[in-house]
């Protein structure tokens, strides 16, 4: 199961890379696809220990998208810890909750990463609009995944196959 999740995480990172390729719409760059993994982990309360997976995810993010390795690990673990804390006080697990968690995670990741690179002299331009766009799109993405999971398409597909075989 862990290997499958890791493989899927790698796939999302590759997709994230693809979204930033030249020729793709500019707003694709605001979408943070790997956020779904820490949202799912926090809402599923599957992680009982310190979020090493988020750390690895952040370091991988840095390797692929950042100028230096390190700030991504800080940002992603911070987002994961924030979402753990939020999930402990919010009982809602609906698609709306997934979207809201995505928004919060995106905001935390972006802000913490900017803060982490600030002492290094690498702080780039930052605007509230970009932050809002990224938060909204990531929230929609997480909400979409949450909706799919809530619809349980696999169960409906299996029921369809059973009916078809009859």
């Amino acid at each position, binding site marked *: 199961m862990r290997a499958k999740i890791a493989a899927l995480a790698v796939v999302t990172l590759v997709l994230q890379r693809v979204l930033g390729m030249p020729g793709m719409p500019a707003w694709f760059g605001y979408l943070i696809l790997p956020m779904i993994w820490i949202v799912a982990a926090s809402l599923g309360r599957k992680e009982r220990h*310190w979020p090493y997976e988020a*750390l690895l995810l952040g370091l991988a993010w840095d390797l692929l998208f950042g*100028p*230096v*390795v*390190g*700030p991504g*690990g*800080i940002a992603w*673990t*911070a987002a994961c*810890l924030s979402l753990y*804390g939020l999930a402990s006080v919010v009982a809602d697990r609906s698609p709306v909750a997934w979207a809201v968690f995505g928004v919060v995670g995106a905001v935390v990741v972006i802000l913490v990463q900017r803060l*982490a*690179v600030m*002492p*290094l*002299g*690498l702080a780039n331009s930052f605007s509230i609009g970009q932050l809002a766009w990224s938060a909204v799109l990531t929230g929609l993405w997480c909400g979409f995944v949450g909706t799919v999971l809530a619809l349980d398409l696999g169960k409906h597909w299996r029921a369809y196959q059973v009916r078809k075989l009859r």
Partner: protein
Amino acid sequence: MSRTYLLRTVLVWTLLELLAALQVPAVGGSPVLFSWLRTLIEPVAMVAQGTVDLAVDLGLGARGLQRATVENREMRIALETLRARQILLQADLAALREIGDFAGPSAEFDAGALVGRCTYRDLIAGTMEVRTAGSFILAHDTPVVSAKGLVGRVLRSDGRRHWLQLLTHAAAAVAVKTEDSLVHGLALGTGSNALTIAYVPRQAELERGDLLITSGGDGIYPPGIPAARVTRIRESDEPFLEVTAVSTADLHAIRMVLILPEWAPTASGGLP
């Protein structure tokens, strides 16, 4: 979040930030991490250097203080030495002046008169110790005078050291007379600075302040030496006056004395 979680988070984030700082070059080309380390280390190094400098300065100051203390002590000792030497020089100067005063009386005596320096006196006991430049064995009863008058006689002599019996000694007696030789008497020591002049007839014309000189009648002292000055005269039922006098020689401050070893009384009782 438990405390362990918090500590672990801070630790991991710090390591990640340091890892990132190691990858970013600073202005000089070295990683930003090194500039951070320099920023952290330099104040500590400055404080350490300042502490070392302070310790060195304190050590130098303590050594300088110790040296100054020793020098101060040596200077005090030197100052005390100079003061003592000054006192001795003043004493020598006063002695030399007294020796100069001897030019008058010594001319009256033989050339064999010796100059002695008073080194110890006990006026209560009526004794004095004098020292001479050379070793001499002085005869018993050798008269001793000062520039101001009679001092006493030699009791014992031992090389350079000679012990005298002052004329104020309780057992001392000196034959005295007035300068006009009309009144004779015997000056007796009392153990104090006062002398009792005995055997002065009631009809004698003697006044307070009169000078009494040696008459030579005792066969010990040469005549004509100032011996005492009358301070009190009193008549009583006795056939003689009660006369009190004081020694003319300042026995308290006397430094130099003249010893007359070769004086010998003549049959007439005068100077040889």
